[in-house]
């Protein structure tokens, strides 16, 4: 049996959640005051994911950087790998919102896409 402690992000209450796991399966969630806490806790201990946002260099753009994000959530454990993979990415202007900046980042099957329009100089 394993217990994990989390802070719920559902609302400003910030309930302190205790999750009990048995062989990787959630058997109990306590400390939550609403259903959202239960859902959050189960997902967070079994399959935590995040959207990663960053910005990468633009060549010949009106501004130096274009902001970008993973189109969908990626596993939380891969945040640093994704950040690292974006470190030396450079795209050519013009860039439009939704353009793929880096395809299938770190083999996650998720593309990193531009979140800003950057016109050429």
């Amino acid at each position: 049996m394993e217990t994990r402690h989390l802070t719920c992000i559902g609302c400003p209450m910030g309930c302190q959640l205790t999750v009990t796991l048995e062989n990787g399966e959630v058997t109990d969630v306590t400390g939550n005051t609403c259903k959202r806490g239960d859902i959050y806790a189960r997902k967070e201990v079994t399959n935590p994911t995040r959207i990663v946002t960053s910005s990468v260099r633009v060549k010949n753009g009106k501004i130096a950087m274009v902001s970008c994000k993973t189109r969908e959530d990626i596993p939380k454990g891969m945040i640093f790998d994704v950040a690292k993979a974006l470190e030396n990415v450079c795209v050519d202007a013009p860039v439009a919102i939704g353009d793929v900046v880096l395809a299938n980042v770190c083999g996650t099957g998720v593309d990193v896409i531009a979140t800003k329009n950057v016109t050429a100089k």
Partner: protein
Amino acid sequence: MNYDLVIVGGGPAGLAAAVAAKDNGIDSILIIERDNELGGILNQCIHNGFGLHTFKEELTGPEYASRFIAQVEERKIEYKLNTMVMDISENKVVTAMNKTDGMFTVEAKAVILAMGCRERSRGALNIPGYRPAGIFSAGTAQRLVNIEGYMPGRRVVILGSGDIGLIMARRMTLEGAQVLAVAELMPYSGGLKRNIVQCLDDFNIPLYLSHTVIDIQGKERVEGITIAEVGPDRKPIPGTEIHYDCDTLLLSCGLLPENELSKTAGVDLSPITSGPIVNDSLETNIEGIFACGNVLHVHDLVDFVSQEATNAGKNAAKYIKEGKTVGAKEVKINAVDGVRYTVPCTIRPEEMDENVTVRFRVGQVFKNCTIATYFGDELINKRKKQVMAPGEMEQVVLLKSKLAEYPDLTDITIKIEEA
């Protein structure tokens, strides 16, 4: 130059106000923006979480801005970039300047103030020590990293746990910096829970509540920071000092509405919000000058800025077309017992929209309390809240139909009560 409506600021407030004014029949509109693009601070807020209320999806700042910029472009609303407004007169003559037009004036029938806010600076915080390089407001660091492509430093301490500071803790970490600690003067964080978890806990960055910076070392460049715990009087407690070797201090210690221009026009400001005092139409004491967004009061969600600005745009359009209603009765809204302020401050029962959203912040954390609304001494509405915190804006909606039942009403009171 003459325009029906001049909007000062092309951020989320200015953009939404312009769209609403246009959609309400005003064709002669000019937005004046000092930066080189529209969108305001949203352009540097590259993280996601914007627009859940407005668009029912989670957008990044630049994406949220682009949707409103597109609406402005579609409507062919005029705007001037790289242009700084220098003065607004009581008669609504706006003096501005830029590199191509030089100094020029615009006569407007109505003006919407949408200048946003600025960060509290080191000078306003009274932190002792030398003044070396390496001390930035969190927002400045955000612009450097996200738009201009520079890293402000490698080893970072952050003072203040406002959302921008938390977001920058994560951003600097992902860009390879080491964020050593976040110190917060208050016993609670001013940031959203979600940001505490996803920007600090995810990266094992410690948050020290009731702590502040007591010394900055280094003469040319920051070399170290000392923080210490503070007592209930917010004074440092000897013996609790923690020292960090670092090259950078980021400050995320609150936002202040930027009302220098409002003052030139003679607009009355609230000592609590530092923003204009407005009525239900978001009009200031100067006829035809309206205010919305963070220049009015600092918001936590941009969605609410857009809503508020839409109202300001609509009301400015009405004023331009119909002029001011003379002698309209005004009811005062009192903010007491935990409610720090309200926006608007007054309401005109005969002139108001069918419903008016009154927004406010509480002065401390309240658990299991109610928001109570009184018309005179009579309790009209009670709404229970599990938790309220100064970092999250609250609201009460007033109905014109309800107010019509109280023709002799002179004041409304909003307060926090035990449940």
